[in-house]
């Protein structure tokens, strides 16, 4: 259903030249891409950069009239590549200090998150804890093959359906399912060793 809405918006964008359609696509996925990015990057700014760059690239992709099977997967794929580029440029060190220094600088007013009323500090601490957890998990997962790592995080952390993961990894859905199954076995092995 979600994909059909995306397709309709893309159709409007292409035929009606409606920029609002792109804005709607942005509204639908900006948070998800941001969350996806922040767990893998060292700072909030980096995550924001990657997120906005992801949408800019997606816009270019649409303008070039490339075929888009799954818009959501396209966004994740772009974000993933951008993060990988940053990793290549300088291996990020997700240190608690770095995260704290950035996230506490946030000057945002208090907002409701998931029905809970959180202050800046509360919100920042959620990010810090999540990043720390992610960092720990990622360090353990580093023992796994890259494919396994990707499929596990995309499925278990980012909670993406196999169809989207298949689009991100540019592999058939069946292959992704098999990959996930094997990655889970490998994960159990790592656990038993540690």
């Amino acid at each position, binding site marked *: 259903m979600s994909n059909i809405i995306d397709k309709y918006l893309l159709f409007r964008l292409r035929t009606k030249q409606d920029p609002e359609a792109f804005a709607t696509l942005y509204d639908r996925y900006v*948070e998800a891409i941001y969350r996806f990015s*922040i767990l893998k990057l060292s700072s909030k700014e980096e995550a924001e950069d990657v997120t906005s760059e992801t949408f800019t690239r997606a816009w270019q992709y649409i303008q070039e009239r490339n075929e888009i099977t799954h818009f959501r997967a396209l966004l994740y794929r772009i974000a993933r590549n951008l993060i990988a580029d940053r990793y290549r440029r300088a291996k990020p060190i997700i240190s608690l200090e770095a995260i704290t220094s950035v996230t506490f600088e946030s000057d945002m007013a208090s907002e409701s998150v998931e029905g809970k009323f959180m202050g800046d500090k509360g919100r920042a601490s959620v990010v810090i804890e999540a990043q720390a957890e992610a960092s720990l*998990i990622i360090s353990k997962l580093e023992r796994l093959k890259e494919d396994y790592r990707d499929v596990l995080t995309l499925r*278990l*952390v980012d909670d993406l359906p196999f169809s989207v993961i298949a689009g991100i990894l540019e592999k058939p859905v069946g292959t992704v399912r098999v990959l996930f199954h094997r990655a889970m076995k490998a994960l*159990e092995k790592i656990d038993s060793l540690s």
Partner: protein
Amino acid sequence: MKSNLLIKMKELRHRERFIKPDEAWIRATRQTLLLRAEQALPPQSKVKTSTIIKDAVSTIFPATTFQYMTRPVFAVFSFIVLILGGSMMSVSASERSNPGDFLYGLKIVTEQTRIAIASGKNEKLKLKTEFTGRRVSELRAITSAPQTDNQKVSEMASVLKQDMSTLKDQLAEVSKESTPAAAVEAAKKIDTQTNDVIVALQESKVNLNAETKAQVTEAQSAASETGVKAIEVMAVKHQEDGGTVSASDVAAAIKEHAKIVTDVTNVPLPVIVTTSTASGTTLVVITAPTSTSSSTLPLPVALELGSSTGTQATTTTIPTLLDQVKDATSQAFAIQKEKEVASSTQVNVQTGTSTTIITTTSTKNE
């Protein structure tokens, strides 16, 4: 036991849900992107309907959608092609088959079906004529084989004999019910075809045993009978309406038929056709054989056809005349058959003129 890492990852997923980007940043980025999009997009212009449809199809059903559909769709398509195309191809392939071939049965069934579904007696007759032409081709194919199969030729002769009888009956009906022009057209075709059948059957006799030869002669006799019927239709239609077929055409048909029968049977047919176009009259004369044959061939009959002055003095004699021709030809074939049967019983036949042979066989039968 559940993996620790798995639990941790699921916990992280839970935590991740509480991570939200700054609202201000979201708004600012949205603004920037929207502005960029508005600048990049061309001013509202009329988009072609074809482009809209193309975009709709490619956006909603991208190539990958079809990838999943390809196999089942192709399978169904192949199945339909196999059923429809396959049967059509089989029928067309069967049309080139000969007796004894795998698809020959299908060919015959297809022909029968076509005749059955044909509308009108004239249409049915046309098809029957066409299919008889196929039998002739098949017969030629059988006899052109290095080893002539007596059995196959015998079967084919029997089929042709049957076909000839059917054609004769169908022609009689068509001549009664159809327009004179249609009847004459059909009669002309059948006349040509019967001549062809007689010749083809004669050609098949080369390497046959005497018994089969006799069967072939029977078929030839039937073909001749149908040919005479066709000529009769032409003659009758000529008398009814001179415009549909000329007297000289009828005369030529009789002459040609007589010639073929004579060639095939070696029995000189007592048919002499004289035409006199100058006076506008065509005279067909049947006389006794000029040879000294002792065979009992029909007595001379004279007929005046299609006088330009409108005199139809011999109208009633047309069937009589053609009965005579029919008797003459059937007798010629009977003699031929007797000759073949005689040779199969190892009778020492004197070689010489055909007259001698006729005498010999006639004597033996008596």
